[in-house]
């Protein structure tokens, strides 16, 4: 009997001790902050991982977990996770307005809300819901500008001069063809398969994207002119159907492999490629970014970028945001990844000796003031992706001969209308 009582006591003591240990472990456990991050390879992933390690070391009460995912996961998986209420605390996104219903307001948890207004002012509205002018959801990690690159070595070999500011799209196409012919390069022009990439040139040709009420109205003469030009270039062989025609729907596809192999004279992409080209092209050939070609209405690229945005608001998330958005961390990050800062007052010491990269950074930074207001409005619009995707999927179909351009334009408008109805009812 004594023995049994003793065993019971021992079990009780063990249970109480175990519970206390568990409670204390839970109370002293660090708060987890999960970041879903896509990066353009190691050039972006390594610097952010180093910053997170540094933060974790300095803040034992917070445990930041960095989940590095492919870009597709940000575009397709993240929205479903968020809709199911299972998203990360912070994510690096590019569909800035499209996910705004899920963003959390971190104003009460950041050390100095005015810092965000001063440093990222114009971009904050891109994340906010219509009518909201005060919430802070995050900050611009890097700003991007779309624009073309040329293989300068090929131009030199062909003895063709690069065109200067003010050159039109037709003129750039003509010289690209000339260089390709003279150097035996297979592809004169290649564009990222992306509606965002098409939109700057379309605005240059006069596309407005919105009606007088500010509602999306995709197809007009400007958009028709640019998409027709792209269609014609594909039919004439100026652009290869192997890129735009190779996939279905709105799937993004970039011609980097061709570019790196010097199979392209002129590549339409954007400033985010600078670091990648510096790493991958190296000194294989000289490449330059050139000013956005002109149309009758403007000579503009599209602004853009990616932002770190919060889906949960708590002190730990605020602290992480404060750290990553600080001038010191942002400057270090931007300097390593060779991007244009989204911070309005940031001195960046770019860590590169590559003259091509330096030239490209200057060209894209210089292009920011020339960006057309329509391009800014489009980038800030919550439903811009619907328009971008309609352009790319229908133009892709026309290029491979599944429909005429007339049918493609009709479908583009119908797609936008259909999607908006599904989203907003009616």
């Amino acid at each position, binding site marked *: 009997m004594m023995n049994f009582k003793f065993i019971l006591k021992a079990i009780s003591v063990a249970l109480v001790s175990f519970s206390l240990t568990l409670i204390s472990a839970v109370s002293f456990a660090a708060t987890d902050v999960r970041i879903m991050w896509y990066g353009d390879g190691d050039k972006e992933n390594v610097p952010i991982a180093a910053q997170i390690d540094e933060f974790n070391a300095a803040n034992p009460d917070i445990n930041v977990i960095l989940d590095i995912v492919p870009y597709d996961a940000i575009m397709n998986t993240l929205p479903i996770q968020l809709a199911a209420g299972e998203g990360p605390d912070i994510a690096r996104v590019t569909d800035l307005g499209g996910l705004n219903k899920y963003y959390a307001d971190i104003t009460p948890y950041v050390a100095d809300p005015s810092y965000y207004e001063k440093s990222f002012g114009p971009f904050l509205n891109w994340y906010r819901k219509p009518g909201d002018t005060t919430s802070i959801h995050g900050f611009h990690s890097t700003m991007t500008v779309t624009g073309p690159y040329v293989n300068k070595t090929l131009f030199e070999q062909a003895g063709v001069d690069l065109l200067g500011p003010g050159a039109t799209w037709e003129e750039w196409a003509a010289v690209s063809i000339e260089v390709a012919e003279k150097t035996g390069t297979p592809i004169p022009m290649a564009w990222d398969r992306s509606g965002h990439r098409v939109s700057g040139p379309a605005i240059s040709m006069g596309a407005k994207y919105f009606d007088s009420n500010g509602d999306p109205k995709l197809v007009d003469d400007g958009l028709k002119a640019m998409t027709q030009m792209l269609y014609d270039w594909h039919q004439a062989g100026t652009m290869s159907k192997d890129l735009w025609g190779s996939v279905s729907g709105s799937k993004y596809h970039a011609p980097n492999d061709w570019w790196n192999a010097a199979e392209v004279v002129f590549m339409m992409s954007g400033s985010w490629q600078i670091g990648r080209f510096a790493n991958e092209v190296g000194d294989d050939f000289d490449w330059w970014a050139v000013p956005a070609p002109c149309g009758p209405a403007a000579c503009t690229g599209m602004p853009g970028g990616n932002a770190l945005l919060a889906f949960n608001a708590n002190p730990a998330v605020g602290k992480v945001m404060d750290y990553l958005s600080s001038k010191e961390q942002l400057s270090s990050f931007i300097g390593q990844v060779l991007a244009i800062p989204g911070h309005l007052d940031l001195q960046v010491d770019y860590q590169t000796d590559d003259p091509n990269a330096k030239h490209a950074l200057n060209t894209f930074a210089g292009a920011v003031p020339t960006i057309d207001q329509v391009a800014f409005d489009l980038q800030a619009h919550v439903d811009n992706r619907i328009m971008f995707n309609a352009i790319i999927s229908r133009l892709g179909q026309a*290029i491979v001969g599944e429909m005429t351009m007339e049918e493609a334009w009709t479908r583009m408008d119908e797609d936008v209308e259909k999607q908006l109805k599904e989203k907003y009812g009616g």
Partner: protein
Amino acid sequence: MENIRNQTKIFFLRILNIPFAFLMHAIDLIMWPIQKIIGVRNMPYIFLLPNLIFFGLFVIIPLGANFFFSLSSGDELLFAERELPTTKQYNQLFDCESYLNPNTCTEDFFWRGVYNTIFFVVFQVGLMIFFSVLTAVILNKKIIGRGFFRSVFFFPVLLSPVVVGLIWQWILLKNGAFNAIIESYGGDKVSFLTDPSWAMASVIFVSIWAHMGFYTLIVLAGLQAIPPNLYEAAEMDGTSRERIFFRITLPLLMPNLLVVFILASIKGVQTFDEIYVLTGGGPGTSTSLIVQYIFTTGFASSGSVQNFGLAAAASMVLGVVLLFLTLMQLYFSRNKESKHQEI
């Protein structure tokens, strides 16, 4: 010595038996009262229960949820936030001026997917049966290295569809291995995956390559079940090889070919992953099948509205097609069984 060894063996077996006996007693503690309450006759239902719970959780409930999604609209995931009920999604799917021309349909991507799927299934299944029979007939003969070749033909079945897609992408791309061979012989490069006139043929070929081994095995089993005395009698009568094949082999293989036909059709209608990796459904929409339409509409909209309702409605349509094929398979396989029993 032998006796000691046996006793040691028995001792260790007994020790190993302890946890098993303990487990059985534990189960018995639970089962005995249940059996007392519901009776021995109803006990099979209890044993089926765990499986039924999983089936319900992962098949029946999602099926019901899919049905309700198909009757709702909006871009929200949660039912409470969706507009319900509505037949809008079905109306949208079937809104066509002419069903023969996808360009006249509101959901032209869906109808392109339907026609591509029909084309794919007809040619993939037809050619698959042809090559499976051909391969099985050859592998049924006494050739050198028969075992090796049987393994070789079955090997692709073991590969993941993504791996199949990536391997063949590497081979068929414009700068891929196959074009390198063509160029080395002075030929021009062929856009196997990016030319609409080649892309579908390429994906059918890859799909046959990947799945043929499985169906070859079924046909081979059928061939081996044919009584050899039939062949001996035919040979003694001086019947030609062609006549033997068409009058003995093929008729007796028919039940197996029917199974192959239906299984391959079901698999063909469901095809998605290897094509998605290989061509992404392109060029344009020329290799985009129904399942890709469902996936893209519901889950991979790249920033557009994720139309779960429309994707669910398309899934229901696909479900009806698959149900029909499955019922066919059940009907024919039962027919076959009853014929066997009669024999």
